[in-house]
Every structure is written in structure tokens, then in C-alpha cells.
């Protein structure tokens, strides 16, 4: 007993700080985390942000509503379409513009394709973060097909800037339906392969199951949303709760898993790809005829007051909040970014786990840094 006290007095461990980032392969961009570590065990995670802050909210106060949309592409570039859709929907709602069914369906289809593309990229990177480097190229092979669809119809592969107020910029390309059908067929073959390669792998299971647990109550309190929140059983799919565009026209399930660990969050995204395919399948043959772009005024002024529009991006609950003073530009515009909220959950998930778990958890909350550093 005496000996034990003697040792405890002289041999002690010391907590130390480790700077993870801004140049680190696991931070998915320029982000920095200050870790407080005891050996390899994490005591605290404090994110330090702002390395690519561009002050988009301030720029929006300067720009007209038409010009804002192209800035939203640069927020969460993997859900570029959905971000733009949020602004377009907000302005349409405020001005009372009824868009045609064709526009709604086109927007929904592009949004679901974007969601699959985003989840595919996430899947590839998730594999890389756990050390399986090959997943990345497999994911990019399939993502390439979506990017080709986008390029043909929207003119760009990533920051498409396809939304305009009152519709979309171009009509669908004549090859669109054919390509989407091809993609659905291809993807249905490849998704089970993803499971065989990574999801079922015993090492991967061990790395993710039971790691980074966060309960439903904590998830809600920390504001986790999107697939991250749904992995904890928090029903937060805006497509279901506040349907917009064509989501009330299609059948799909909100994926809810109650595990709360990294594997649940992983599985939610995999299953969401299946759901997105299901939505695409329902819509691809039934794109209604109609206008692809409604006529709008040359100068758009929102009525005085406050406007809020929420959409479900690939990362979660994206919100645009505009305070208008009746002018051409918003008085104050706030982008509620899903990644920023999810990032805060990281600390709660990771405390007491190892560095390797931090990397996995960080990967499963799927942040895109420009989305956080708006």
C-alpha cells in the first residue's frame, strides 16, 4: 500500500496538447482542433475555425437576391444544389411565386443526385480515414457518373449554380433521363459491393461499433442534425417534417437508427443512398411537362420582415434566415449550417476515446469545412 502511494507520487501521467490541423489529412480541409490528451486518450477537443472564412454572410448583405445564390454554392460545396435551392425557395415563398411541378421535380432529382454524390464522397473518405484507401477510388468511380449528369445539364460538376429565383437555369438535357436510369442501375449493383468491402469488414466493424456514442437526448441538445442526428434516433429529416419541392409527391422512408455510435451514423448514410435511389426511381419517368423557369421581376425586393427556409442537405438541416428591410439586398442574412452544429457534438462523442476514434467520429459527422467557415 505504501509502495503504491510512493509510486503515485512520483510516477504520474501528464496531459498534453496536440494540434490537429490546420494541415492534417483527417480534418478534411483547413480546420484545426486542439486536443487535450492523456497518452492516447482524448480529454477535450476544441475546434479552432476560420482558416477559410470568407464572410459570405457579410457579402450577402451587399448582393442582390439573384447574386446570393452563386455564393451558397461555396458554402457546403458537396450540397451546392440544395443550398441554392434554400435561397430560391425562400425568395419564392416570400414573393408568393408558385413554381411549376416540373421545376419542383427537377430540383428534387438534382438534389437527390447531389445527396448521393455527397454521401459517396463521404464513404470514400470514411474508408480512407479508417485506413482502407481503395474505397476512395470506388466511390469516385460512381460519383463521376453523377458529375457527368450535372455537367451535361447544369454546365458544371460541383458548384453548379443551377437554381435561379423562380426555377432552374436550363431545362433538363435530353440525355438526362437515360443517364439517370443508367446510374440507378449501376448504383444498385455497386452499393452491395460497398457493404461487402467495408461495412461488413470485421476490422471496420470493430473500429466503428460502440465508438463515439451519443444519446438521442444529447444529440438533440447539441443540435446534431442530418444523418448524424438520425444515427442517434433523432427524427430530423426536413424532407419529412417540413416538405418542400417535390418531396410530398414521392414515397420514401426517413432512415432512423438508434445505435448512436459511429456505425449507426455510417449505416444511415448508406441506407440514405438507397432511399435517394428510390426517390429518383419514382421521379425519373414522371417528370411533368411545364416551364422550367417562371417569369420573375427584374429587380427582386423581399417584403419587410423575417423569412426562414429550411432544407435537408446531405449534411443535415440547412437554414437560410433573412431579415429584409424591403430593399434589393437583405438587411441581415444568416446561413444556419448543419456542419457547424454537428461539429459541436464531436466533443461529447469523443471524450475518453482514442485519437483513432476521433478520426472515425470526425469522419462520421461528415463536416465540410467551408460550410463551417462561412
Amino acid at each position: 500500500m505504501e509502495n503504491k502511494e510512493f509510486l503515485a507520487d512520483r510516477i504520474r501521467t501528464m496531459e498534453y496538447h496536440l494540434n490537429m490541423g490546420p494541415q492534417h489529412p483527417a480534418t478534411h480541409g483547413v480546420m484545426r482542433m486542439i486536443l487535450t490528451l492523456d497518452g492516447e486518450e482524448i480529454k477535450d477537443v476544441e475546434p479552432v475555425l476560420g482558416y477559410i472564412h470568407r464572410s459570405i454572410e457579410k457579402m450577402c448583405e451587399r448582393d442582390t437576391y439573384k447574386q446570393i445564390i452563386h455564393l451558397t454554392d461555396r458554402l457546403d460545396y458537396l450540397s451546392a444544389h440544395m443550398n441554392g435551392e434554400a435561397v430560391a425557395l425562400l425568395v419564392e415563398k416570400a414573393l408568393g411565386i408558385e413554381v411549376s411541378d416540373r421545376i419542383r421535380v427537377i430540383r428534387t432529382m438534382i438534389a437527390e443526385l447531389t445527396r448521393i454524390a455527397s454521401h459517396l464522397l463521404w464513404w470514400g473518405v470514411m474508408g480512407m480515414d479508417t485506413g482502407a484507401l481503395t474505397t476512395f477510388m470506388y466511390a469516385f468511380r460512381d460519383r463521376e457518373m453523377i458529375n457527368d449528369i450535372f455537367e451535361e445539364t447544369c454546365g458544371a460538376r460541383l458548384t453548379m449554380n443551377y437554381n435561379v429565383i423562380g426555377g432552374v437555369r436550363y431545362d433538363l438535357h435530353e440525355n438526362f433521363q437515360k443517364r439517370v436510369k443508367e446510374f440507378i442501375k449501376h448504383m444498385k449493383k455497386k452499393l452491395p459491393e460497398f457493404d461487402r468491402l467495408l461495412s461488413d469488414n470485421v476490422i471496420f466493424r470493430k473500429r466503428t461499433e460502440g465508438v463515439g456514442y451519443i444519446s438521442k437526448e444529447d444529440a438533440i441538445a447539441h443540435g446534431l442534425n442530418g444523418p448524424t442526428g438520425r444515427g442517434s434516433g433523432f427524427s430530423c429529416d426536413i424532407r419529412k417534417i417540413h416538405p418542400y419541392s417535390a418531396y410530398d409527391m414521392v414515397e420514401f422512408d426517413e432512415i432512423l437508427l438508434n445505435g448512436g455510435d459511429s456505425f449507426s451514423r455510417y449505416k444511415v448514410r448508406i441506407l440514405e443512398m438507397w432511399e435517394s435511389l428510390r426517390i429518383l426511381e419514382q421521379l425519373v419517368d414522371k417528370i411533368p411537362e411545364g416551364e422550367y423557369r417562371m417569369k420573375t421581376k427584374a429587380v427582386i425586393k423581399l417584403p419587410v420582415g423575417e423569412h426562414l427556409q429550411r432544407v435537408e442537405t446531405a449534411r443535415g438541416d440547412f437554414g437560410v434566415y433573412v431579415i429584409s428591410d424591403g430593399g434589393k439586398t437583405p438587411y441581415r442574412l444568416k446561413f444556419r449550417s448543419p456542419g457547424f452544429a454537428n461539429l459541436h457534438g464531436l466533443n461529447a462523442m469523443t471524450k475518453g476515446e482514442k485519437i483513432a476514434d476521433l478520426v472515425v467520429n470526425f469522419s462520421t459527422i461528415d463536416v465540410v469545412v467551408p460550410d463551417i467557415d462561412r
Partner: protein
Amino acid sequence: MTKSELKEKISSWSEELNFVEEGSEFLVVEVPAHLLRETALKLRDDKDTAFDYMFSMTGVDYGEKLGVVYHLESTTHHHMIEMKVYTDDRENPAFDTLSDVWPATYLNECEVYDFFGIKFNNHKNLRRIFLEEEWKGWPLRKDYVDEVNMLIR
């Protein structure tokens, strides 16, 4: 609950709460700064309101006043409310932190402090989260001037 039911419910808590129904699709509660924590706790814990999900927190510069807008949602009832709080003090604005009521506000409060200079009392680690510590001024305030980097049209 609908807008009017919410109003009825919340107005019974205190007479100092002010309600606005125009200009927004949600009910807006204007809370005096000293009642902020108390109201927030009630909004979260009362079974009929149960606003457990802090959706968004926005700092706003209204000209003379500075304010913070909280968008709250209930995950059980799926209703939303806007909670607003103002201060006239532009030199040293401060509110109570809500980071223990809704942990989601923790980083958001840092963001509001960073851009508007609104302090949050009792916040564990209030810092400039996006800008560097040496940055002068509060960029999203309307009176912020940066002649070098800002392109004004």
C-alpha cells in the same frame, strides 16, 4: 401548438414578454435580457412547449440596438418559435449564456461574439472563433469599416 396557443401559454409566464406576430411566419417572443435564462429554461422544460432543439442563433445589428435571434423547435410537437433579445448598449453588450440550456449554442455564441461583440456571461470559453484574437472591430455590425478588404457597391 399553433401560434395563438403558444402565445397564450408563454404570456402567462411573465408580463414583461412582448409578442410580435407580424412579419414572420413564426411567433416571435421578445424577451428582456434579464429574463433570458429563465424564459429559455421554461421554454425547454415546459411539457406543452418543449423547445428542446435550438435550430439557429443569429446575431443582428438593428442600428441602435443589437440583438440575438434564437430559432427554437420542438422535436415532440414540431412547432417553432423565435426568441429575440435586445440590448441598447453598443459599447459593452452582454447577455447570459444559454450554453447550459441548449449546448448547441456553445459555438454559436462564440460566433456571435466574434462578429457582433456581444458577450455571453458565464460562457466557458468565449473567444473569437473565426477571426484572430487581434482583430479590431466587429465585422458584421453595420458601422464596421474596413477600407482595404471591403468592396462596397
